[in-house]
């Protein structure tokens, strides 16, 4: 059985699996409200506003997430306030205008940001594969709190969504309930941006919810089904990305989109649905017919040759220690590299790079460019590096590469050949 089915390949990207499944199961539950209330465009617009806010935070050198959240909540308040007012402009027209402005401002702020472009991209668009433990925890806590909050007030939100005029006539403060719902949505969108990115966040919000509603089950069942379908689609996307060396977020999005025709087929007849699912499975399997074991996520170039060579008998261990700088904008990292190699091993790469990710951190550092020249047996090297940080960071996760990520020669080191453990950052 292929390792992408028995799960061993997914173990190489534990953060991505954890973050993906948490978001994949909980975001569709929230997405049901987005679909039922017909506020999909509002959601898209809020994501852009959040991006603009985060970018503004980077320009002003203030914490980007709180800035993004503040700006998004401000817009939510304005949208809810304008909801019941007479206007010559259609609501979606105003949202469209806001979407344009927010998108343009995000780009303008990014261009003016003093931060490194990689860091900006990481903060703005997220990257599931480099989801740090802090980011995963914050996303999980936010999503669980959001689901719990909307679950407690399910009855009120249902009446407001189903028949707003009646809810208002019966004395419910409809604007207040909408404010709660949209504020929760804004918070989730802003926080999720760090891990799942805007594309995947929206895919997770919408696609499983639409698939679930197409099955025409009851109300409670539809919410549960949306979560279940989201989880299944996310897992399938992760497995597909690992198996076929595809871009992770896009693979998950495609798998979630596949839920729509699959559910439509299932609704006609369960057998038709099962056949369609089997065909999808076969299609995914065939994509990875040529074995490629490189890490997913940046598969613009295949590194199968390098990886095959790296599976020769040599091994690298890297231990880290890290301390937060005085100004919270740098972290001092000390590393200790232990290299073991057998005689006549000519497959050792020349360079070894350390990729560090964490909350507000995305940094690569070359550990050595003479790895292949190290003597046989065991050798140790040590060094330090200064890592830029966008704010206080509690933990860093590391990964070894054979070159810079930007370089065509670089590829992730097979976890069996080289390992680096995450490290808590000392204050």
């Amino acid at each position, binding site marked *: 059985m292929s390792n992408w089915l028995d799960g061993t390949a997914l173990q190489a990207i534990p953060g991505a699996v954890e973050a993906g499944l948490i978001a994949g199961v909980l975001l569709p539950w929230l997405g049901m409200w987005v*679909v*039922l209330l*017909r506020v999909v465009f509002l959601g898209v617009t809020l994501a852009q506003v959040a991006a603009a806010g985060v970018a503004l935070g980077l320009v002003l050198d203030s914490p980007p997430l709180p800035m993004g959240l503040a700006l998004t909540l401000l817009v939510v308040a304005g949208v809810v306030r304008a909801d019941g007012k*007479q206007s*010559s402009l259609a609501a979606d027209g105003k949202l469209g205008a806001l979407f344009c402005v927010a998108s343009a401002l995000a780009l303008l702020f990014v261009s003016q940001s003093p931060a490194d472009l990689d860091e900006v991209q990481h903060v703005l668009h997220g990257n599931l594969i480099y989801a740090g433990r802090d980011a995963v925890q914050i996303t999980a806590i936010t999503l669980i709190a959001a689901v719990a909050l909307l679950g*407690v*007030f399910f*009855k*009120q939100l*249902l*009446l407001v*969504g*189903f*028949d707003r*005029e*009646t*809810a*208002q*006539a*019966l*004395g*419910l403060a409809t604007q207040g309930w909408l404010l709660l719902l949209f504020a929760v949505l804004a918070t989730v969108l802003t926080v999720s941006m760090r891990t799942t990115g805007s594309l995947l966040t929206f895919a997770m919000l919408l696609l499983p919810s639409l698939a679930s*509603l197409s099955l*025409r*089950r*009851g*109300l409670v069942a*539809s919410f549960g089904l949306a979560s279940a379908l989201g989880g299944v689609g996310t897992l399938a996307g992760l497995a597909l990305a690992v198996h076929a060396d595809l871009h992770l977020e896009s693979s998950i999005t495609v798998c979630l989109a596949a839920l729509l025709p699959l559910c439509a087929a299932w609704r006609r007849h369960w057998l038709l649905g099962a056949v369609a699912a089997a065909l999808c499975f076969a299609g995914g399997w065939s994509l990875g017919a040529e074995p490629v074991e490189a890490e997913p996520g940046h598969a613009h170039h295949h590194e199968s040759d390098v990886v095959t060579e790296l599976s020769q008998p040599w091994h690298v261990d890297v231990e880290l220690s890290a301390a937060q700088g005085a100004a919270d904008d740098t972290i001092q990292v000390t590393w200790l590299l232990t290299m073991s190699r057998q005689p006549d091993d000519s497959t050792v790469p020349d360079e070894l790079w350390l990729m560090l990710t964490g909350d507000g951190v995305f940094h690569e550092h070359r550990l050595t460019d003479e790895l292949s020249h190290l003597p046989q047996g065991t050798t140790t090297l040590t060094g330090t590096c200064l890592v830029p940080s966008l704010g206080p960071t509690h933990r860093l996760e590391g990964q070894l590469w054979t070159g810079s990520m930007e370089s065509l020669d670089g590829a992730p080191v097979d976890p069996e050949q080289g390992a680096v453990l995450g490290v808590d950052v000392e204050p």
Partner: protein
Amino acid sequence: MSRESSQPAAHHTPPSADSSGVLVRAENISYRYRREDVLRDVSLSVPRGSVTALVGSNGSGKTTFLRLAVGLLRPRSGRIVHPAGLRPKVGWVPQVDDSEVLYPVTALQVVLMGLTPGLGWFGRRGAAGKERSLRSLARFDVADLASKRFRDLSGGQRQRILLARALVDEPELLVLDEPVRGLDFTSAVGLVKTITDLASERQLAVLVATHSLDLVANHAAQVALFKEGRVQAGPVDEIFNDALLSEYHDAAVHVGRVAGHRVVVPGTTLGDAP
């Protein structure tokens, strides 16, 4: 019953006293939408135990008045008075065409929604709420539809379920917007009869906007004729005459009697049948 109007002062009678059983009273209210006067200086009392019908052509201000009466809108001038003191508990039946069909809710779940405002933030409806909802469905002969998907039902069935929802929390004021639109004759008559009986049994004040003059003529106690933001109101006997209805509809209208029931027909040539 007092006769009220927004016409010149000679026709205007001040709203009746609280002791007359008036639940809601509009006092000289005006409302403007996009620089256009929708209602102008309208006064109308809605008494308990009977049906008050709002009649008029499209855009004459009927639905706006309903919204003002329950507080969905605020008048530009004038005021809505609740003689009993507190705002009465309202049952609201929107136009059935406005029903949301995306939600996968059953008829019972729709009726249960009517209990939500009375629960507070963390209240639960429980078995008692379900029992009340089923009773309310039974009142409109649709208990057998409780587990059916709301969006799969016909317009008439949906209308009955929305009525069951409006009444499940035992409101004092029942407000209906075009309740018989799209219903067949038998269903429409049955529905209006049920509403009239409920008004009498529960001392419910019923405010209904409709185009169905025949039903109004035979079941409403009071009629308010809306035209260009102005209102002429009074008992059916006073309002339903050829001259007044013709004036308000800008067309010849004849009110006659067939087998003891009022009928309203266009033109003036139809004689009264025995």
